[in-house]
């Protein structure tokens, strides 16, 4: 057993996209009650790193481990503890916000409409609960996707640009949610360009081109 067996460890990960060496030996370690802020100029592989950490993308070299165990070997258990919000909100335009949440959160844990509505209310998307998501604005969709992360009650959050498309109140809300999650013993990995001034333990990882 590893000493730091409760955390997430990225060990010299290399990823090539065609001829491009996107991630050149990235190593980082992070633990619960901590937020990892991933930043860097465009095209330096922030999203790629997040995809590698989520297990969507297999690195050509290096490994990712969670609680001391390789995520490639314990993929399903690991992904069940994961909430990933990609840059695109991943909502079906023909389904209502509530249905969207029901079908994606429902695969992770048993849930009910009241709980999902509460999550939507918490992120300020309660008014859109019964609207098809294709009529929502980009900011509202972002709020719905945040509500999904919240409703999954996962211990690891992977958020790709959670501040995009949000107004000031929305940005404050994201910061608030992140702080609450980290304080409750969760782990959050956030890709963001702006400075995060959060009242919790923040570790920084800057990717360079």
């Amino acid at each position: 057993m590893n000493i730091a067996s409760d955390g997430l460890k990225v060990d010299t990960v290399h990823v090539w996209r065609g001829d491009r060496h996107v991630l050149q030996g990235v190593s980082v370690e992070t633990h619960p009650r901590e937020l990892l802020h991933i930043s860097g100029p465009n095209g330096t592989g922030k999203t790629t790193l997040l995809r590698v950490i989520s297990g969507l993308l297999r690195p050509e070299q290096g490994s990712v481990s969670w609680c001391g165990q390789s995520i490639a070997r314990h993929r399903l258990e690991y992904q069940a503890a994961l909430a990933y919000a990609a840059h695109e909100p991943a909502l079906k335009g023909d389904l209502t916000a509530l249905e969207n949440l029901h079908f994606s959160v429902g695969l992770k844990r048993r849930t009910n409409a009241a709980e999902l509505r509460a999550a939507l209310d918490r992120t300020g998307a309660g008014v859109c609960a019964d609207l098809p998501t294709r009529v929502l604005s980009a900011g509202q969709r972002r709020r719905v996707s945040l509500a999904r992360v919240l409703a999954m009650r996962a211990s690891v959050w992977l958020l790709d640009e959670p501040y995009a498309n949000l107004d000031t109140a929305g940005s404050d809300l994201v910061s608030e949610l992140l702080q609450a999650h980290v304080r409750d013993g969760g782990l959050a990995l956030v890709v963001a360009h702006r400075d995060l001034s959060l009242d919790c333990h923040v570790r920084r990882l800057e990717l360079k081109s």
Partner: protein
Amino acid sequence: MSVGAWEAFFLVILREMRLSFRRPEQLLQPLVFFLIVTTLFPLGLNLQLSLLRDMAPGVLWVAALLSSLLSLDSLFKSDADDGTLEQLTLSGQSLTVIVVAKTVGHWLVTGVALVVVSPIVGTALGIPTSAFATMMLSLALGTLTLSWLGAIGAGLTIGLRRGNVLLSLIVLPLAMPLLIFGAGATDRAMSGTSVAGAMYFLAALCVFTCTLAPFAATAALRITVE
């Protein structure tokens, strides 16, 4: 509380059904295509019922295969485009369960609809009502098999911009046995001879794809998601 595989399976099927019924035009287009293509044949040929009857099983099956292909393209593509496929992959459920549920859900709305309207087409082509049962059962087996073949093709082509042409090129050669035995079964039912041989072949193909295609489709999907 974690969610079991069966629960996840039915949830994904329910999602597929609800999405299809929210977009009825997508559901109806392949059906209308099926009806139009098959009614064009009697109009284009000179009206000899005997000639039409000879060609009916082949026409029916070719039209059914082509119209099934129309809807296969969207099996994984829309989910891949809007990022829901990533969410499904990361759901903590086995991707194979999700692929099976999506394919079965797809067949339940497209394949079953095709089987249901086939008597109309059969009547238009002069197929006797005594052959309808065989025709419908063979179509049910054939469309399910085709959905599985299509799932592999759709999994391989989601990353491509004009993947639907390639999808046809991948799936149609594999669907040739279906055409041969499907049309053969219908033909034999029309002439009143035993259909057992052809139907057993169709059923065997169906079982073969039902058991192996889920794994192939999952592998294809995993490659393209990366």
